[in-house]
């Protein structure tokens, strides 16, 4: 089942290509891919929570917390980027704890509704707390990211920063998913009673998965703040929240790369349609078709295609191993 050589080769190729983007892509694609990676972090960080069976439609709220915290610390108190980023992520996780702890006993749709409500609460706070966030004027003048006191002035250096962040976060999430922790999350999603009977403290683990997601969403938000350098409360609304969820479903829930593929595909899908007013229409049609015809997400597309080809060449139906 597990490929021995294939995965490292593919990984190396992808990372290699990613490293080459600034070389050949020019500033614009550097910019685009930096945003793609931000989306990848957001989508992938939602996965642990989804794996636990928690339908979180409020992830953008935590991105927003990370973004505003880091931006304000850096702008008002001249806190170095590394620290403000971590503070943003930590505050997002702490708020995640505060909202997650009491809502743990809510299941399924109720939990989803709390998260929807929470997105609106955070957006409104960002909008109304004018003295802090400058509300609907938008928060500008956010310093560029820096590392060890060196400001990353070029787009390319910021791109490498987010690429690094993405790789580290994906690696951490990958490790966690393939450790006992990941197994426990999966078990909670598959059957929480059975997991409990084996001694799993499901409340604690759900909370942990949720907070972890908040932490990384906060990280993505913090990077975003110092990259775009302008924060506007409506950006982190319901639309962004649902997009993050959609990345997971369109990419596919069945494998770790699902949200990565989903976020990449859907973020890049808008590129060919930049000048067209029909971009959103194409986007939504792609979403709908994927859900209806590829219930396992885009990651099952190669298998589906292979099956189709197989059907055409074969004269007899596939003998299933179970039959």
């Amino acid at each position, binding site marked *: 089942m597990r490929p021995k050589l294939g995965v490292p080769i593919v990984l190396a190729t992808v990372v290699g290509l990613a490293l080459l983007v600034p070389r050949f892509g020019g*500033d614009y694609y550097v910019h685009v891919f930096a*945003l793609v990676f931000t989306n990848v972090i957001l989508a992938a960080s939602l996965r642990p929570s989804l794996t636990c069976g928690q339908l979180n439609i409020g992830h953008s709220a935590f991105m927003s917390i990370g973004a505003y915290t880091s931006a304000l610390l850096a702008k008002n108190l001249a806190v170095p980027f590394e620290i403000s980023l971590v503070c943003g992520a930590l505050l997002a996780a702490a708020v995640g704890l505060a909202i997650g702890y009491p809502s743990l006993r809510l299941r399924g749709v109720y939990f989803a509704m709390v998260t929807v409500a929470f997105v609106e609460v955070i957006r409104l706070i960002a909008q109304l707390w004018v003295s802090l966030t400058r509300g609907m*004027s938008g928060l*500008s003048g956010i310093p560029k990211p820096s590392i060890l006191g060196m400001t990353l002035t070029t787009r390319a250096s910021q791109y490498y920063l987010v690429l690094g962040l993405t790789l580290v976060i994906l690696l951490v999430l990958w490790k966690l998913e393939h450790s006992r922790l990941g197994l426990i999350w999966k078990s909670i999603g598959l059957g929480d009673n059975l997991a409990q009977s084996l001694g799993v403290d499901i409340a604690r683990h759900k909370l942990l998965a949720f907070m972890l997601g908040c932490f990384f969403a906060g990280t993505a938000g913090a990077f975003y703040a110092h990259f775009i*350098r302008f924060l506007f409360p409506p950006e982190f609304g319901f639309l962004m929240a649902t997009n993050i969820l959609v990345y997971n479903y369109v990419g596919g829930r069945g494998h770790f790369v699902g949200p990565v593929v989903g976020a990449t595909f859907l973020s890049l899908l808008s590129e060919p349609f*930049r000048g067209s007013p029909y971009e959103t229409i194409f986007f939504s049609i792609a979403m709908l078709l994927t859900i209806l015809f590829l219930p396992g997400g885009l990651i099952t597309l190669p298998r589906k295609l292979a099956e189709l080809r197989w059907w055409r060449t074969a004269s007899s139906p596939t003998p299933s191993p179970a039959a």
Partner: protein
Amino acid sequence: MRSQRSRMLACLTVAGLVAVGPGITRAQDVVKFGVSTPLSGPAAPWGIPHKNATELIFDEINAQGGLDVGGKKYKLEVVAYDHKYVIAEGVATVNRLIAKDGVKYVSILGGAVVKANEEAVNEGRVLNLPLAYADGLVSPKNPLTFHSFPAPPETTSFWKWVKQNHPSLKRVATISPNDDTGWWSIKVETTFIQKLGYETVAKEFFERTMTDFNPVLLRILTQKPDVISVLASPAGSVGLIIKQARELGFKGRFIHIGQVDTSVVANIAGKANVEGMWVHGFVQTPLPERIKSWQTRYTKKYGEWNATSIDFANPAFAFVAAVKKAQSFDPKKVADALGVVEFDNLWGKAHFGGKDYYGIGNQIIYPMPFSEVKDGVATLVTQLLPPHN
């Protein structure tokens, strides 16, 4: 393993296709002008005339062979991208214009988007002719930004006229969207009218998505205002405010400072309810010949008429005039020319000024019509220049 690899390959192919993107090579004598504006979504009614007006002016110049600079004819081309009024998209599109399309002149629409791009424009040494209400945009720190639209400080002059001609009006209530635009316009206007001796009895803000203004209006009406100033609120909101205020028994006048099409407002508010409304920057009768002709040309090319296009043609007019004057496409030289050139827009003579007020003369100044709605028609009362020159 096969499936994993092909999965990855599929992703890469998508990435590759995107990277190649639409064609880039163009002839040498074409000059590109970037437009980053909302072409879809709720703000599209501003973005579409922005793009259309610019294209219409350029097309007319191209039809005459192009723009003559240093004895050579250059064709003008609009490269427009949709930012949907989303900041991330706004930053990405401007970046694309500058970094990928190599554009040296842009016109960005929308206060928040313009602000988010302030540094990109300054650092990229790109000339920006934005259309936005945003406090602090016209400032010595943005020497290449030439604001091509009358902002709240330019539109207050009519209060002097009101004071002279309607001395009985004393109490003014203001209501505006809860954002930069709203705050700024209320701040500017209240300062101005308080100096004139008016009493500001209410300052209310509303969410742009709001449709039920009853709660806000109930608060306002308890203060018994003579006039309600809706500042530069969007036409749809203004229509609803007027309609609901009348239903709640308000008998006084409304003032709008932001070039709103009163027929659009009347559609929602009801014709009788807008009677007597004052509007700055919009007129229906008597219509200047130049605007009549513009309306014909615009409608011929795009079908649906949009009065917003009248003022949103400013960036193109200013750009063309400045290039002609500078006889160069160098943004710096064009910028220098913009500072001194006087040109025609659809209302009359226009120039960039306002140094006394802003500290830099980068704000467009031109006479704007001030009208009153009579029998449902916005009838010209007077034409007014901004309080500063």
